[in-house]
């Protein structure tokens, strides 16, 4: 998998007006335990922010808060101009959440159907082409490998064409090679949007993130942003990346020990 074919650029190109996203006074208590309080987070406009942290620290709840889904944390989520984000956010979960009775193409078209819009088949096919699944458009999800399923989910997420994309460990269930390929595809297709990517893989964060933050502690606090040199998707052989990976691992280990 490489960057998208040039022909699909009009269908998949960068979203207009990717806003800055500000989360203010986020609060989450679970079973009487305070997971975070008065937490603030800013996602720079049109850039990919990666969020790392030990499991159970509340990363997924934070994503759900931004996505406007119930059972998440409480808090205010606004764009840079102080407006509500509703309708501008696409969400991709760790599970692919493909509907098993729909073909790959129809899964990608799910959003159109759910909004009652005419299905944009051309665009869906172009996106499937971009994620390398053009030939499997009519297959049912059960006939696909884990990597193909997650690629379908990525195409479905991009089909939404939202300026803000939230991804909750989207590649964590994949094997190393598949994950590596899919990271590259995703980086190309997500360029220009405001992306929050949750991951537990420091190397993934370093490949894909313009900036990387660690959420740790109880109640959890956000560490200072790490901004690796160069633009994503970064080659793992980029000088300095290994040192940063060591640094991230050190922070995560310290977070778990605390």
């Amino acid at each position, binding site marked *: 998998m490489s960057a998208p074919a040039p022909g699909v650029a009009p269908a998949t190109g960068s979203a207009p007006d990717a806003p800055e996203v500000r989360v203010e006074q986020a609060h989450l208590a679970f079973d009487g335990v305070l997971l975070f309080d008065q937490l603030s987070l800013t996602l720079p406009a049109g850039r990919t922010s990666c969020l790392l942290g030990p499991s159970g620290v509340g990363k997924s709840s934070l994503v759900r808060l931004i996505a406007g*889904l119930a059972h998440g944390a409480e808090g205010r989520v606004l764009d840079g101009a102080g407006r509500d984000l509703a309708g501008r956010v696409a969400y991709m979960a760790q599970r692919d*959440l493909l509907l098993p*009775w729909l073909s790959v193409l129809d899964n990608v078209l799910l959003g159109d159907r759910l909004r*009652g819009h005419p299905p944009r088949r051309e665009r869906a096919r172009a996106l499937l082409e971009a994620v390398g699944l053009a030939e499997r458009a009519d297959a049912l999800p059960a006939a696909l490998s884990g990597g193909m399923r997650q690629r379908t989910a990525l195409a479905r997420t991009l089909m939404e064409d939202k300026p803000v994309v939230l991804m909750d460990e989207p590649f964590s269930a994949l094997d190393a090679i598949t994950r590596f390929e899919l990271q590259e595809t995703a980086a190309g297709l997500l360029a220009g949007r405001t992306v929050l990517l949750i991951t537990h893989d420091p190397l993934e964060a370093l490949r894909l993130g313009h900036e990387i933050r660690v959420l740790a502690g109880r109640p959890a606090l956000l560490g200072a942003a790490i901004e690796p040199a160069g633009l994503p998707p970064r080659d793992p052989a980029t000088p300095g990346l290994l040192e940063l990976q060591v640094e991230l691992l050190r922070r995560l280990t310290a977070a778990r020990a605390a």
Partner: protein
Amino acid sequence: MARLLAILRPLLVLLVLLLAWQAFVWVSAIQPFLLPGPLAVLETLVARWPSLLRHAGVTLSEILLGLACGLLLGSASALALSAVAPLRRWLLPVLVVSQAVPVFALAPLLVLWFGYGLWSKVAMATLIIYFPVTAAFYDGLRRSDPGWLDLARSMDAGRWRTFRHVRIPAALPAFFSGLRVATAVAPIGAVVGEWVGSSAGLGHLMLNANARMQVDLVFAALFVLAMIAVSLYFAVDRLGRRLTAWQPEG
């Protein structure tokens, strides 16, 4: 080859059972008004075919109308229960308890209310079908994967469209397992209704033949009833398999 065997095996077992039955009748020389042999039943089946067919038509209409009404009411109830929370709070406990009522015991009342004709049996079959369909379909709707519902919400989906594109298709396997149960019991409902009071139908025919010691005719009617029940069941089963082919074989 394996498929052919799968069809042949039960037929072979059936044939052996019929042979054993005939052999028993021959050896024991039992009175035909107590137990006729399968050959005698076959003779009656052929001789009384037009009459059997007419009564079978009545019973089949009762079953099919009952299925249609029960399905419609059951599906509507399941949808309403899963869509409207107050309805769920007020009616679900009643519905659960009412399942314990032996519906067959209501047959005399239904005949009293709806008369000796078709509609008391349709009401009986409807009642019998209603509960398994409602319970199974509601259960299927309730168990929608929360991840799918989150996804639909993040796509700005309306409530009804979420039902139509996500929750109802996801509940189809549960719906069909309820429908399979309903199809199996619907003929019982119709026949019990006919026993209590009727002027036509296979149950009516059986009861009359029984009173006149025409046991061969009872068996012939029973055979036709069994054919109806089995065909209906397999038709529903096939339809269910086709519509839920995406489901991994359990």
